[in-house]
């Protein structure tokens, strides 16, 4: 059985390399029964499309962010300033974590099984210019491209930027020509992958915790013999466990890669980060909570606060 697995980064990016190793492990563990065929760089469509194709069983697997089109509650996955450090992130998004368990349930409603969470990075801001008072949340007049996701747009505004929703296909060019001065909504790894030539300043503002999910269509999963299903799940668990041990240093390595290309990495004090977090919690959270269902969302936040 060959399973087609999509991911969002180019060939030879970190996730691509890790998935090739995962594919080897799965092949060995299933005695050659299950092979994975990788489709890097959104070759099967962007993550929104791929998630829907997985839901109907047209694509088997993917490692990617959660798409919110079919269920706006999935925005809980990229809730801004939910985790402040890696330890908290692991408690929230790692095995048994509140967001992770919630997401597994939401995926199940779309006929999708979540096999693993894939922690990527804390989000930041990339600028094609020098920063203006990067530690403050006062309006700074800098235009940044935001993805068409409400929480990112609101967060950008709350941090003092002018968010401009430019399509991803035009984003690089827009930054390069100066239509906008930077990008928000990704992190060091994402900026290195897609915006490294136009990143002059990187502000690690910890805007959100980026987590992807390894997901598989229920149809594809149930098409496997029980022992292969078990082997696949076990390998996915190991894959995630390994990832949690390297994710933080991977983030540092990507910041270093940006620095090596000449970007200035701004350093923010814990107080500045706390002030940003407070502002976003105060102004953005109520609006996003309203969208996902205030009671439903608050229950998850309460669970995390415990």
């Amino acid at each position, binding site marked *: 059985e060959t399973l087609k697995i999509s991911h969002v980064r180019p060939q030879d990016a970190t996730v691509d390399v890790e998935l090739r190793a995962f594919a080897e492990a799965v092949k060995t563990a299933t005695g050659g029964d299950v092979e994975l065929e990788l*489709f890097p760089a959104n*070759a*099967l*469509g962007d993550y929104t499309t791929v998630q829907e194709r997985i839901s109907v069983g047209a694509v088997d697997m993917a490692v990617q962010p959660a798409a919110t089109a079919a269920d706006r509650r999935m925005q809980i996955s990229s809730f801004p300033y939910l985790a402040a450090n890696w330890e908290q992130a692991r408690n929230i998004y790692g095995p048994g974590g509140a967001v992770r368990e919630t997401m597994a349930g939401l995926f199940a409603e779309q006929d999708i099984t979540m096999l693993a969470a894939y922690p990527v990075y804390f989000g930041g801001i990339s600028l094609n210019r020098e920063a203006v008072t990067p530690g403050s949340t006062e309006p700074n007049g800098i235009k940044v491209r935001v993805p068409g996701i409400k929480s990112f747009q609101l967060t950008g505004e709350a941090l003092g930027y002018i968010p401009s929703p430019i*399509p991803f296909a*035009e984003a690089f*060019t827009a930054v*390069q*020509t100066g239509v906008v001065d930077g990008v928000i909504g990704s992190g060091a790894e994402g900026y290195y992958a897609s915006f490294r030539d136009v990143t002059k300043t990187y502000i690690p503002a910890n805007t959100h915790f980026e987590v992807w999910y390894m997901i598989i269509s229920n149809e594809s999963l149930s098409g496997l013999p029980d022992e292969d299903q078990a082997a696949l799940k076990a390998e996915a668990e190991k894959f995630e466990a390994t990832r949690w041990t390297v994710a933080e240093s991977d983030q540092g390595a990507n910041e270093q890669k940006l620095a090596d290309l000449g970007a200035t990495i701004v350093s923010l004090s814990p107080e500045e980060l706390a002030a940003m977090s407070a502002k976003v919690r105060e102004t953005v959270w109520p609006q996003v909570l309203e969208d996902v269902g205030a009671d439903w969302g608050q229950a998850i936040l309460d669970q995390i606060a415990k």
Partner: protein
Amino acid sequence: MIEVALLAIAVLVILLTLGVPLPYCFGGALMVMYFVGDVTMKGNMLWGFQQLGNPVLLAIPLFVLAGTIMSESGIAASLLRFVSAFIGHIRGGLGVVAAVSCAVIGAISGSGLTGIAAIGPILIPEMEKRGYPREYATALIANSSILGLLIPPSVTMIVYGWVTDTSILACFLATLGPGLLIMVAFSLINLWMARKFPLVLDDKPTMAELAGEATRRGVHALPALLMPIIILGGIYGGIMTPTEAAAVSVIYAVPVGFMIYKGLRWDNFLGAGKEAATAVGAIMMMILFSMILSQMFVLENVPQQIVGAIFAITENKILLLIMINIMLFLVGMVVNDVTAIILIAPLLLPLMNAIGVSPVQFAAIMGVNTAMGGVTPPYASILYLGARIGKVKVTKVIPPAMTLILLGYVPVVFLTSFWPELSLFLPSYFGY
């Protein structure tokens, strides 16, 4: 699976030949993949439809509409008069005016049809009056009209950038060099051809007369000359994205056409809107199904298999480039520019990567070849439109068109393939 893919392509070509509308030709190929190759259609409509929603594609109807408004409103005509103030009076100059005007119009319009549609009705009778054979004048303007696809902005380069995930601005710049070279080639060929025509020339104007006339026409053409500056300056100056620039060009052209050049009236404005929407609707429906077909190819690893099959013949870069140019020439004979790019670019890009041709240079190679396809019979939409506008038989236009293709296009096509700097110089100068 490659056998099924080839069968699907064969069915596609047969349906094309029968004159079936393009969307259903691709639909027929999909049926082959589905019924013979057992490839799923599940979720494919969803996938294809979501591809159409990409805002990058929105630039296409807007640039097409801007082009139609230009030809209806008199904006293009004023550009033509301005260009002819300088070179209209020299021997063979009117032919040079045709090539240069089409290039200037090409800097506003994204389509290959605007030039012939806008200046053909004015310039063909004028050239005939001055002693050019009517079929030659028609062939020259139709061939030059294609500069609309090579001088940015360009619909084909938008599509290429979109399907291959290459910077659209870099693709725009890649075809600019070859486009200008073709303009120069046509001008020179025309000067050489014009020796044999019994041309009627105006008296050579004095320097003062020339300056006065150029100034007068320049002032008149100023609102029109601002358009390329707004579009290209807006894009490369960091004010707007190509899609937004296309919208701005429409928003600018409408009042200029209604109030300054006055060629635009309520009825032909509505007609232009309908024409642009219909032309683009037909393209989009075709893009929808061709995208699904190429996605099926991707799922079944067809591009890699094709590369393997081609490499089995030869791995020599020069031979491969010659083969690809011949293939593109043949493809261009039977399908239109956008179709050729959607069909071929994703299939051949892995091969180009393997032999070290950059995606931006490949954009230029695809660009000049598919543009030339617009004038190579049997399927030569731009040449046929020219014959209709020039009121000459298609069979009469083909011989002079062939001369221009062989002496003008073909050398540039080969230069584009074998001299990378021709297409890469400008993009690299702008940092792509």
